[in-house]
């Protein structure tokens, strides 16, 4: 609790005690009024001052003004009738309780959400004369060697030059499994070092490091306001004056009509009371505070789950997503080539791989890299002699005095070797040993383990159509799409064709249904920015992707896409609940007030109660674990 809140709480309690005491005090008339004036001023003096200043600055229609007029009016009515002062004081009291609760709840959730996003490192360790010295990360220059001990956060991006350890990346990616890290590997700031001491040479300044970028992004996210928020602030601007004038009309018109036209008594007190009730109900605070709070909580919850949303507006658009367009490589597939199968082998698979890896060892092509990886053991290059590379075909090399030919079908034809075609899609490496066919190796990009589940989850999240765009061949594309259950495929596209395709899709759908494009952030920045919502995944450390995308998935798990959509749906559902609930209750109470059914007690509930409920409801947006 802040100092202000403590003081307010004291005033609230004091007023409540005074009210109870006064209730039992047998006084009347003027003395009673003066005594009751004490708790009224205790609880309401700041509101009265604020209202007065508001009028002076020509900012009439704010909450303080409404409350001041309503309670002063109620006091005046009570004086006139020598009646009940409790009502006016209670209205002020409840209003203050509501304000207090609001400021407490907002402050609390502000802290909670900030804690969720707390990845800011406080210091960096620099070794000086054998001693570790803690310095401000901002002061560390590029190329400095910093030491990160177990349990500490990595403050700045860099390369490990000494030590190995496992890192907890959950603050960045939401992934709970630790990541192993070795000397020579790049590390990003914000991860927590778990086991060993790491010496890291920094490659960026603190301000350019991943952790600063993410913090910046998340903190500024709620500044990009959604349509619902804009609607509410416009609504509040019209609503408050409207209610004030209605109250004025309610106080004067009916009595005048009664006197002049109907010939009845005016009942001034009754109508003024109704008008004051009107004013109490009218405060727009429930709406005005709960909508941004919902978005803030939603964005906070999402970032805790590894989904960075760049603004409330994107959360809103995401919830209306009906079309999801994927870039294949790196999004649904790993984007790395792997040996998938070995067919028709006359030798053991291991042996065949060994020969293939040796023969291709001189090449830097991704294919030969994947062969080496599949073989997995160090290669003795001394076993290889006479490498002949035939461009576009493959290689012929002498290994262990055997003539190994490794390459595509063209190479086999060229050597006049009878080979067997493969019905699998991917890159095929045929092998022949001393002129006889020895089998082939299938190398292909592999589908991510969660890709299929992710597509199914999107469908159940209400996405109408999934589309895949790829530069790959038609056969590969169709096979992947079939396996994953994707609706539409466009293959053999150049990067600029992807933009055109997305534009075509954007035109063919209705504007209410939004289109999201998911890419890995590598050379698809133009498409990311063209789509209604650009989602970049696995973008840790890729500045271009973080720049271009509206939503950044911190790890590369495609399941996060449906999770992000579900988070946005929940958040928007809460926003609409709050809008309808708050406006609905207020309108009902206004009507009841106008007809004289609602008294000020009900009015205070309509104001404070609705606000409390709306704030509690808004905080629900923070809980996203089960989505």
């Amino acid at each position, binding site marked *: 609790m802040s100092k*202000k809140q403590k003081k307010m709480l004291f005033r609230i309690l004091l007023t409540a005690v005074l009210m109870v005491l006064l209730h039992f005090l047998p006084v009347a008339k003027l003395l009673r009024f003066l005594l009751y004036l004490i708790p009224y001023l205790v609880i309401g003096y700041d509101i009265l001052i*604020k209202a007065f*200043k*508001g009028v002076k*600055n020509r*900012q009439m229609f*704010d*909450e303080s003004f409404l409350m001041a007029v309503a309670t002063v009016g109620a006091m005046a009515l009570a004086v006139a009738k020598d009646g009940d002062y409790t009502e006016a004081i209670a209205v002020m009291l409840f209003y203050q309780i509501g*304000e207090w609760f*609001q*400021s407490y709840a*907002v402050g609390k959730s*502000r802290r909670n*959400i900030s804690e969720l996003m707390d990845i800011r490192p406080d210091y960096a360790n620099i070794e000086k004369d054998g001693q570790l010295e803690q310095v401000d990360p901002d002061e560390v220059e590029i190329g400095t060697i910093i030491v990160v001990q177990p349990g500490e956060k990595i403050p700045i991006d860099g390369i490990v030059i000494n030590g190995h350890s496992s890192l907890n990346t959950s603050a960045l990616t939401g992934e709970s499994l630790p990541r192993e890290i070795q000397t020579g590997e790049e590390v990003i700031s914000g991860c927590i070092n778990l086991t060993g001491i790491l010496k890291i040479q920094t490659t960026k300044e603190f301000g350019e490091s991943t952790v600063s970028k993410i913090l910046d992004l998340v*903190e*500024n996210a*709620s*500044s990009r*306001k959604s349509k619902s928020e804009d609607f509410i*602030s416009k609504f*509040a601007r019209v609503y408050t004056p409207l209610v004030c004038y209605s109250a004025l009309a309610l106080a004067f018109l009916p009595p005048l009509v009664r006197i002049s036209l109907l010939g009845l008594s005016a009942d001034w007190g009754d109508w003024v009371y109704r008008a004051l009730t009107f004013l109490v109900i009218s405060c*727009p*605070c429930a709406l*005005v*505070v709960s909508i*941004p*709070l919902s978005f*803030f909580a939603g964005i906070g919850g999402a970032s805790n789950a590894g989904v960075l949303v760049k603004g409330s507006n994107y959360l809103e658009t995401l919830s209306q997503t009906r079309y999801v367009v994927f870039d294949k490589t790196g999004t649904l597939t790993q984007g790395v080539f792997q040996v998938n199968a070995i067919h028709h082998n006359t030798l053991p698979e291991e042996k065949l791989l060994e020969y293939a890896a040796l023969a291709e060892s001189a090449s830097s092509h991704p294919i030969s890299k994947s062969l080496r990886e599949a073989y997995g053991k160090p290669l003795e290059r001394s076993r290889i002699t006479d490498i002949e590379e035939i461009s576009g075909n493959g290689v012929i090399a002498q290994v262990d005095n055997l003539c190994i030919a490794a390459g595509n079908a063209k190479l086999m034809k060229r050597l006049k070797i009878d080979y067997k075609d493969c019905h699998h899609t991917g890159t095929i490496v045929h092998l022949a040993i001393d002129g006889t066919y020895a089998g082939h190796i299938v190398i292909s990009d592999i589908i991510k383990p969660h890709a299929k589940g992710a597509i199914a989850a999107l469908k159940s999240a209400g996405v109408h159509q999934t589309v895949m765009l790829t530069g790959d061949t038609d056969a590969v594309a169709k096979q992947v799409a079939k396996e994953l259950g994707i609706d539409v495929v466009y293959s053999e596209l150049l990067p600029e064709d992807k933009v055109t395709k997305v534009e075509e899709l954007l035109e063919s759908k209705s504007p209410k249904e939004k289109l999201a494009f998911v890419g890995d952030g590598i050379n698809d920045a133009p498409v990311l920015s063209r789509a209604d919502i650009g989602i970049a995944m696995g973008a840790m450390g890729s500045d271009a992707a973080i720049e271009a995308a509206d939503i950044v998935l911190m790890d590369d798990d495609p399941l996060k896409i449906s999770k992000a959509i579900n988070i946005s749906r929940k958040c928007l559902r809460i926003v609409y609940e709050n809008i309808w609930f708050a406006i609905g209750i207020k309108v009902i109470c206004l009507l009841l007030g106008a007809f004289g059914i609602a008294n000020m007690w009900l009015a205070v509930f309509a104001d404070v109660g609705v606000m409390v409920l709306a704030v509690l409801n808004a905080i629900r947006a923070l809980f996203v674990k089960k989505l």
Partner: protein
Amino acid sequence: MKKTYKIEVDCANCANKMEDAAKRTEGVKNATVNFMTLKMSVEFEDGQDIKAVMQKVRTNCKKVEDDCEIFI
């Protein structure tokens, strides 16, 4: 030129009013107030004396919401 300032304000509607007031201040191109993070980011027009503009922004904000503070 864009700068972010820490602010103090109690209610969300007041934050909206501060945003309006800041936007209307001379020398300010655009301004957003973020009630949740209690920050005001102000985009200045070119060639403005930032300090002087911010003083005006503060005065204007105080007019609409007496109970606010901008930490310049």
